[in-house]
């Protein structure tokens, strides 16, 4: 990565990153892909998030689904760990709780492939600073 030497450098980099993300999010873009985040804080990992993320990466590849799987921190739902967030282009993100390998499989097969609802969705219950 290049050095950030001025505030303008930072703003430029941010804008680039944001538009890249917007592009990836928008539904009517050919290049947009599914984004999956796995809650990989200590409590997530302790409840098996590592196995879940490994499974997701492998299964999505095997099943030829283009998706970007990444780790993130604790989402706050300790009672429902491991948790994952799935964001399909153009749609609101959905958080699933109690995700083990079977559940992850179900999420791929039903929600990701066919948009069918899967049990275990955790409703959003907070504001972010932007809304």
């Amino acid at each position, binding site marked *: 990565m290049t050095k950030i030497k001025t505030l303008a450098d930072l703003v430029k980099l*941010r804008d680039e990153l944001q538009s890249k993300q917007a592009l990836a999010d928008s539904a009517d873009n050919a290049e947009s892909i599914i984004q999956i*985040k796995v809650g990989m*804080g*200590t409590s997530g990992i302790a409840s098996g998030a590592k196995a879940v993320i490994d499974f997701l990466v492998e299964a999505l590849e095997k099943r030829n689904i283009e998706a970007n799987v990444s780790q993130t921190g604790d*989402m*706050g739902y*300790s*009672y429902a760990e491991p948790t994952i967030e799935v964001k399909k282009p153009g749609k609101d993100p959905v958080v699933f709780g109690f995700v083990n390998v079977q559940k992850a499989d179900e999420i791929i097969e039903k929600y990701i492939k066919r948009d069918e609802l899967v049990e275990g969705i955790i409703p959003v219950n907070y504001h972010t600073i932007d809304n």
Partner: protein
Amino acid sequence: MTKYKQIRIALNNCGVIDPENIEDYIARDGYMALGKCITEMTPQDVIKEIKDSGLRGRGGGGFPAGLKWEIASKNHADQKYVVCNADEGDPGAFMDRSVLEGDPHAVLEAMAICGYSIGATKGLIYIRAEYPLAIKRLKIAIDQAREVGLLGKNIFGSKFDFDIELRYGAGAFVCGEETSLIHSMEGLRGEPTIKPPFPAEKGYLGKPTNVNNVETYASVPIIIRKGASWFNKIGTEKSKGTKVFALAGKVNNVGLVEVPMGTTLREVIFEIGGGIQNGKKFKAVQTGGPSGGCLTEKHLDTPIDFDNLVAAGSMMGSGGMIVMDEDNCMVSVAKFYLDFTVEESCGKCSPCRIGNKRLFELLERITKGQGTMDDLQRLRNMSNVIKDTSLCGLGQTSPNPVLSTLDNFYDEYLAHVKDHKCPAGECKDLMKYFIIAENCVGCTACARVCPVGAITGEKKEAHLINSETCIKCGACMERCKFDAIIIK
């Protein structure tokens, strides 16, 4: 802004960004606040902004952060330090860990902002060695920030240099106390010293040092970005912004919760927490960890903020919140916390070193049914004296679990002392095995299995347990097919 009870400020990026990728942070306006401070604001401006925001320390004491920065800025020295307190020793608390694991750059950015405002070029994060993942992510974050020049020399092309190092704590609770933490970083015994002098005057290596909690720092970049007036609209008159709690115990949705100051306990426990598990009855909520107290039904509608919790006999603490139901014995709860304190006292001052041990011993006697009315009187006096005379915050607050349960659950203490009963059924020593005569068919199975011959009765007639000889092994209860044996 009323749809949900929670607002995420400190947890803003937690569970959203990849903490190991600085680009994710930058995409969410990361380091914009630092850039703004360095290029558009004077150090005094920054301090004023933090002061105006009303941000108070999230590590327990609730001291105004801006004021602390100001004091450190006014104490002149050739070298000053910015310290992040990531010792997080409260049992069950993991707010700071989650922030560091989920959004490490926010803390780094805030420390640099603090350094800029007080005139420090060195930052130190004191983190417990038991947090390997947080340590790993902090290391990655520091490396990445250095790599792009957001830490190091001439940040944003200015004359401002700032760098951060990690220091590891061995996990002693008292090392989270700021003077103790500083001694520990200096390689000395981790025990507190009398304040004043405060760290802002004489801290690490005798230099002015600003110590703040992880969550306090995590709130700073947003305040700078969105302005003090945005932040101070959230919360109550004297406590601004939000607070993260680690909600635990007998609620359905245990986890991290971030709510505006002023949210009631009821809202947190019943709305966000989803109420009590298994439909049981709410009994108490313990806030503030080992330094806090147990609040009851009558406090449920108290708006949570620093001052209200103290007035109710508890503390904000660092944000532990443990919910209890009817099965929790409050004497045992007090005993649990005292056990922790006894383990964690540094031993420097006599009231805490010895007094807490005595409190624990008395509580243990009470839970065994050996307590007397005199003991209850002594429990209160010892608690008051320990609070009144201890050297540091640990001893000054450690009797709170005892005092608050004495205040709010005196009947339960009385039951243990006078009737030798534990109403919640938690104190094993006070439990008795009974046979319900109506259910007993007189099969004699229990009498045959009792190892001490405590059960008597004629065949086909109701049996009786002699509680004097009974050793509470529970063998009879297991054997009875008619649910005739109960514990009371």
